């Protein structure tokens, strides 16, 4: 007992590796939220009139909304007037190239393992880096432009491609969608934008890295990805935040649009600061992600590995509108210590022969609470729709919890749905068996957890999968006593 308890103590005391703060002068606007603030944000970004109007419409709608309470997460009330809605690292002018980016910022990303200098970048990944409220650098822009691919910050897209933004913004997640998405619509500051033209297969992974730095600041980014007819793209999203003992709000929106025969693969490794062992601090992650398979034979695939945040509230969903379109959701969600996750997906089958697959792996350790919440909806016109769902939970220790809420609504009798669910526990006998073969307790837990998550990791791009495995190991350190 003594030896294993000791290593476990050592491990739990290991800190969140990305918890440092960058000392950089920031430009913020006054705390709180009102129409003036929204004007100010829009002004700072030199937005066209239509954007400001959209924001104001959202804000006015938000005032009529109530924060949802149906979820299985608990937190003290959020004071929306205490938050700073905009923070940007001070730059004399918008950087035109990487050379003009503040070296402090470049160093930050270097420390996070995301080198922005293009020559150092892993070939095949273009990165957009978002720091607090603004995008600080987008790499490989020119190379992508040769193919007609637009990959830039959302702010730039608003200025340079207003027609595309106007056409698709809110087309998947309307400004009135839900409390957090509506708040985002009113105050979102930046995010990434990608447009893949007709018939183009994006030759490299597109990636956005989100970083919250400033204290008491909310991060509200917005991502919009459009794949035109026959286009395909794989997009990766990563995120971290400093250790702070107050909770910080992150309310993002992601919209994906896939036209005829287009494919979008969206992968997330979410590692926001989860709070300390007593549950103090951490990010409140309230995110709305949705994709619309607008065209026939289109496909949208979500893969997420959620290891961070004090609270995770997100349901990446697919609206399967085009005939024969395909939606997929692969998820690993980990809750350790006092983390809470309420996550899942919605698959809305509208078109004929639409198919969806849901594979979720919830891992709870410590006092963590992990909820899967999913909806499969087959509408009247969705003849021959198919869904396969598999929801597995793994418990480590006996103070944590796993909950599953699968909802099904079927309005077409030709559809076929399959649902499987399981709950298992890492047993002391399994750990001992591994140790008897020479494997340490931590490695044994990793082995078992990775085995449990295999089907999801398989869906991640190679390098991300390795990263995800490591991350899982770190977030579960000390979970077995």
């Amino acid at each position, binding site marked *: *007992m003594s*030896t*294993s308890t000791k290593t476990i103590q050592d491990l739990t005391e290991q800190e969140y590796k990305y918890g440092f703060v960058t000392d950089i002068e920031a430009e913020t606007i006054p705390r709180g939220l009102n129409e003036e603030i929204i004007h100010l944000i829009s002004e700072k970004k030199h937005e066209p009139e239509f954007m400001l109007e959209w924001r104001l419409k959202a804000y006015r709608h938000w005032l009529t909304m109530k924060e949802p309470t149906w979820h299985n997460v608990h937190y003290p009330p959020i004071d929306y007037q205490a938050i700073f809605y905009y923070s940007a690292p001070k730059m004399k002018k918008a950087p035109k190239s990487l050379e003009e980016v503040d070296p402090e910022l470049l160093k930050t990303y270097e420390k996070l393992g995301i080198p922005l200098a293009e020559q150092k970048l892993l070939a095949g990944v273009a990165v957009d880096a978002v720091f607090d409220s603004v995008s600080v650098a987008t790499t490989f822009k020119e190379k992508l432009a040769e193919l007609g691919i637009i990959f830039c910050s959302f702010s730039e897209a608003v200025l340079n491609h207003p027609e595309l933004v106007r056409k698709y913004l809110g087309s998947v997640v309307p400004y009135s969608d839900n409390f957090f998405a509506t708040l985002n619509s009113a105050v979102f500051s930046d995010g990434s934008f990608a447009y893949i033209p007709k018939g183009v297969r994006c030759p490299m992974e597109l990636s956005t890295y989100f970083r919250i730095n400033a204290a008491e600041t909310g991060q509200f980014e917005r991502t919009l990805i459009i794949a035109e007819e026959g286009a395909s793209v794989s997009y990766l999203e990563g995120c971290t935040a400093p250790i702070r003992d107050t909770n910080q709000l992150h309310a993002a929106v992601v919209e994906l649009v896939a036209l005829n025969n287009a494919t979008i693969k969206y992968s997330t490794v979410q590692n926001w600061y989860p709070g300390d062992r007593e549950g103090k601090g951490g990010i409140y992650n309230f995110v709305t992600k949705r994709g619309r398979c607008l065209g026939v034979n289109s496909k949208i695939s979500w893969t997420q590995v959620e290891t961070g945040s004090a609270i995770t509230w997100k349901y990446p969903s697919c609206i399967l509108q085009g005939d024969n379109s395909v939606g997929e959701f692969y998820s690993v969600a980990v809750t350790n210590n006092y983390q809470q996750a309420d996550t899942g997906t919605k698959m809305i089958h509208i078109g004929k022969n639409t198919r969806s697959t849901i594979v979720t792996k919830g891992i709870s350790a410590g006092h963590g609470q992990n909820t899967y919440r999913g909806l499969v909806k087959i509408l009247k016109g969705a003849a021959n729709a198919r869904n396969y769902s598999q929801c597995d939970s793994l418990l480590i220790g006996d103070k944590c919890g796993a909950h599953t809420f699968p909802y099904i609504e079927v309005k077409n009798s030709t559809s076929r749905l399959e649902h499987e669910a399981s709950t*298992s526990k890492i*047993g*002391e*006998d*399994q750990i*001992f*068996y*591994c*140790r*008897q*073969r*020479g*494997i*340490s*307790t931590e*490695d044994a837990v990793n*082995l*078992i957890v*990775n*085995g*449990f998550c*295999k089907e999801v990791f398989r869906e991640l791009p190679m390098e991300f999968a390795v990263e995800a495995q490591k991350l899982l190991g770190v977030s579960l350190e000390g979970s077995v006593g």
Partner: protein
Amino acid sequence: MLEIKNLRAKVGDREILKGISLTVKTGEVHAIMGPNGSGKSTLAQVLAGRDTYEVTGGEATYQGKDLLEMAPEERARQGLFMAFQYPVEIPGVSTMYLLRAGLNAARKQQGLEELDAMDFLSLVKEQAKLVEMDESLMNRSVNEGFSGGEKKRNEIFQMAVLQPKLAILDETDSGLDIDALRIVANGVNRLRGPDRAIIVVTHYQRLLNYIVPDRVHVLYEGRIVKSGGKELALELEDKGYSWIEEKLARA
């Protein structure tokens, strides 16, 4: 190789091992027999380091080191292997993966280079052939959905790959058909050698026809009450444990 002196262990308030002394020298094979519930598995697990059992007295020295001070994985890396009486299932982890992690952990400790995937595969294939284990089994999750006999064979296969210095087999012969019994026995005999030692826990003399032990011990209510040569096993088979019980009662 292994020297146990007056070892005592308990679970909760219940004392299960009540002072066990046993010396196993390199090159030797010892058999431990005894009625159900006498403490055979407890002894094996205490030697392997399971912390369910609290050691309350005595000592155990393994290769000159204090065994009881070592973590279970440490014991394993230093060559102690236990074949479980009831091997556990580990969903999602293949036997191959488990073995590779275990083997490399031991090699790392010994300052050896980790085996790469190719070398490991050829080692594993060779051993699988020797214990006549179907290759599909080792690519499946550890023991998941294995038959009773397959689980036991999987233990012997792992032993063959890990090549332990001291192997403790806890009723690996139970529930095996005749062919499997022969395979298990061959696996053990192949491991037998001047620098290794083996302890087999068994209820059946028939295993000892294949694996001829140097010493046989009878464990009874947490104590070794009788030790002898291989003929002791025959005597037990013949007279049963009541014979020992009576002798103890008379003493």
